[in-house]
């Protein structure tokens, strides 16, 4: 085409799902030796577009040109044959096999693991990866698994790499490592597309950004010529204020006191190890940590959903200073004391909402026991539903729409909104903005701040360190189930928190 440097050229690509148009005549070039960041709000069609390049979907209209030649990609195998590799958010590896076995898996020919190991070694040294071919996947950290996925794709000869939110599960240090590798790959002439919601990452890694809004291509910029504010405005279509307010806590009082909390999982592995801290009213306590370091167990233990080990203690402290032990109470009693948990799991709907039920019924989950008859009261939840949809601007065709049909951002607004309407005194929230676009994220931050101002003790588990540093009054850092320190949010430094997440930096404040 006009640019011989194009690895992939999309021309007027359209894809419809029933009544919705996911991609509307999108024209876009992916160039060799360049890292392209694909930006857009949730539901703007980024993943759909990439899925068409990797053969998962087939476009309804338009052409795809690979290296300047028109091509039909009708299956993932076609895509691999064309040198296209996609690294998905969820890894597709066999746990009980080694790295080398996983990489070889699915390829024809004789199995020669020695040769495979050598080839893996060559790829690793070319780009700066570290992979032990003989390590089993179940022994690997998330970042190691991701590395195996990337090596797997390169092993199959990919020249075009697509990464869908690769940094969501990584620590700042791991992210930096990944970026170094990506830069090496770019310099060797590969075409790289990265999907991410984190603006500072876009600024640090990409050469060019392409922006989608509601399925349409809005435009592109060279990264060096633009900034986060401009990119966000292009994504959203209007100006968005990109600052998070952090009012000083007003008259904080101890609300939840956790002492020596220890939790084992079903296999007897320690998930939380003598965790102690106090959360205050009117304050946001941020919890930082690599995913799977006990954040989930911590919140679930407070909400009464986790079995705790003897010696653990979680007390709820009322305004007049009376302590009440939460361990041993059932989730229902704890809820009624004013502890609300909004946990957004990876699949969004897994805990807290029922996907096939409509908004009314999902509101009823909290209140269906009210009243003395054997029958449910449907009027009150309906009113709550109206209120939440109205106040949080949930985009939904009606209150009778199953929540699984709504976009991720709206689903999360419903969950967080419902928890807030129970007028909690403690709000536990985990990954509240997981996968949400920037606009919805700020709505959620605002909601959480509102709760803080009303004197609610907020425990906020987050993935994005930059946000944690801006939002939280104090930051508790978890590392492998232990508290590696509690820092004041206003002057914490990102690299320091990152170190504490991996326990590398000699933090003296180590508890226990």
């Amino acid at each position: 085409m006009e640019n011989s440097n194009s690895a992939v050229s999309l021309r007027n690509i359209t894809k419809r799902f029933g009544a919705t148009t996911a991609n509307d005549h999108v024209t876009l070039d992916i160039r060799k030796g360049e890292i392209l960041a694909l930006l857009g709000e949730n539901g703007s069609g980024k993943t759909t577009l990439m899925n068409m390049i990797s053969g998962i979907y087939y476009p309804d209209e338009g052409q795809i040109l690979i290296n300047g030649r028109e091509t039909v990609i009708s299956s993932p195998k076609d895509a691999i044959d064309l040198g296209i590799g996609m690294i998905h958010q969820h890894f597709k590896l066999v746990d009980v096999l080694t790295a080398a076995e996983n990489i070889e898996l699915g390829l024809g020919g004789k199995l020669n693991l020695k040769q495979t190991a050598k080839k893996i070694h060559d790829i690793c040294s070319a780009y700066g990866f570290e992979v032990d071919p003989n390590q089993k996947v179940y022994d690997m950290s998330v970042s190691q698994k991701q590395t195996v996925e990337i090596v797997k794709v390169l092993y199959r000869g990919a020249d075009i790499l697509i990464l869908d939110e690769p940094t969501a599960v990584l620590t700042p240090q791991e992210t930096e490592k990944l970026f170094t590798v990506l830069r090496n790959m770019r310099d060797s002439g590969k075409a790289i597309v990265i999907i991410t919601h984190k603006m500072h990452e876009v600024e640090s890694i990409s050469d060019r950004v392409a922006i989608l809004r509601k399925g349409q291509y809005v435009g592109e910029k060279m990264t060096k010529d633009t900034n986060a504010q401009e990119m966000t405005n292009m994504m959203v279509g209007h100006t968005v204020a990109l600052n998070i307010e952090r009012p000083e806590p007003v008259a904080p009082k101890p609300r939840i006191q956790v002492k020596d909390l220890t939790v084992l999982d079903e296999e007897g592995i320690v998930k939380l190890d003598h965790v102690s801290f106090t959360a205050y009213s009117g304050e946001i306590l941020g919890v930082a940590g690599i995913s799977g370091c006990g954040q989930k167990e911590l919140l679930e233990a407070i909400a009464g959903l986790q079995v705790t080990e003897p010696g653990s203690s979680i007390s709820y402290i009322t305004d007049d200073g009376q302590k009440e032990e939460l361990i041993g109470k059932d989730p229902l009693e704890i809820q009624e004391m004013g502890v609300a948990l909004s946990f957004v799991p990876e699949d969004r709907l897994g805990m807290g909402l029922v996907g096939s039920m409509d908004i009314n019924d999902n509101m009823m989950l909290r209140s269906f026991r009210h009243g003395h008859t054997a029958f449910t009261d449907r009027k009150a939840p309906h009113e709550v539903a109206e209120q939440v949809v109205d106040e949080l601007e949930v985009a939904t065709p009606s209150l009778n729409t199953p929540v699984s049909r709504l976009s991720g951002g709206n689903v999360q607004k419903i969950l967080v909104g419902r928890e807030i309407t129970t007028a909690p005194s403690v709000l536990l929230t985990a990954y509240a903005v997981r996968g949400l676009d920037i606009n919805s994220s700020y709505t959620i931050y605002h909601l959480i701040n509102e709760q803080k101002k009303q004197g609610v003790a907020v425990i906020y588990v987050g993935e994005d360190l930059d946000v944690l540093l801006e939002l939280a009054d104090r930051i508790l850092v978890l590392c492998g189930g232990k508290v590696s320190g509690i820092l004041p949010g206003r002057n914490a430094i990102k690299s320091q928190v990152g170190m504490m997440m991996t326990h590398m930096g000699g933090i003296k404040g180590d508890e226990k």
Partner: protein
Amino acid sequence: MTKNKREPLIHITKRVNIPIWFPLVVHAVALLLALVACAILTLVMTGENPFSLLNSIINGSFGSSRKIWVMLQNTAMLLCVSLAVTPAFRMRFWNIGAEGQTLIACLASAACMILLRDILPNWAIIVCMAAASMLAGAVWGLIPAIFKSKWGTNETLFTLMMNYIATQLVAFFCVVWESPKGSGQIGIINQRTELGWLPVIGGQRYLLNVIVVGLICLAMHFYLRYSKHGFEISVVGESVKTAHYVGIKVEKVIIRTMILSGAVCGIAGFLLVGATNHTLTTTLVNGRGFTAVMVSWLAKFSPFWMIMISMLLVVLERGAGEISTKFGLNQSYSDMLTGIILFFIIGSEFFIMYRVHLRKPGDKEGKLHV
């Protein structure tokens, strides 16, 4: 837009916003096509006029007032078992043991009729029969529920195995209580005294069954749609994690729901022995426990749709039977016809959920509906 030579020929997309009438139309078309297929088959095999075939099907269920009542009775019994399995299904508890739960209830009813006939008055026997049947069915449902909720055993295998235990128990007691001696069969129980026989109301032997099942149907609808229990069942079915999260005790709900399921099967067994057959055989339930699974699914777990579906299946079954007798074919032929019809109806479910686009080579996009 240029044309591609390797475009996929068939392109399947999921339907969105399915209108309420749509499944009905698809099912009706499927039924029609099934009848056409049956007609062609019959025409080829027997040379009979296809319209006389249709006539026979209708005649099989609506030919005389007796036939209508038999059809209604069969519909009621199938509906009763279908209603019984439904709460468990809504909870995603795949109970395929309704056959055994009903049969063990039949055994309990028959046992009361035989063992209590010299001890208690008629009304007391009937009360005992009802209680014993529901208890027996409930126990048969409770056992797999306990194992599932405590140790996570597979409920499908477990409930299936419970069927065989029930069959063997019935076979054993058929010999213990055989009458006349040496026949290995029970025969009609209390034929002379009619002790434990449910009263005939309105001069119609089967009317009582129809009324009882109708009431159960209504009650089940309200239970599932509007009660707190019904809501808990739906939440447990959709997401066990969410259920824990909102403080629903999942084990309790599983056990409670399976007791209910089993008890409703128990009522079916009670009616089969007390009102319909007055005897006990290993085949008394006649596969209804399995057909009920299909009824419940086809009706999307909605009690009122189950009335339609179970009636449809009964009419088809009786019609197919009528055809094979009329045209001198054996029972296998009627099974074939029923099979064809079910194949079409179940197959049509796919077209309710998905839309198929066919692209003809060298042609613009063509759409194939249904």
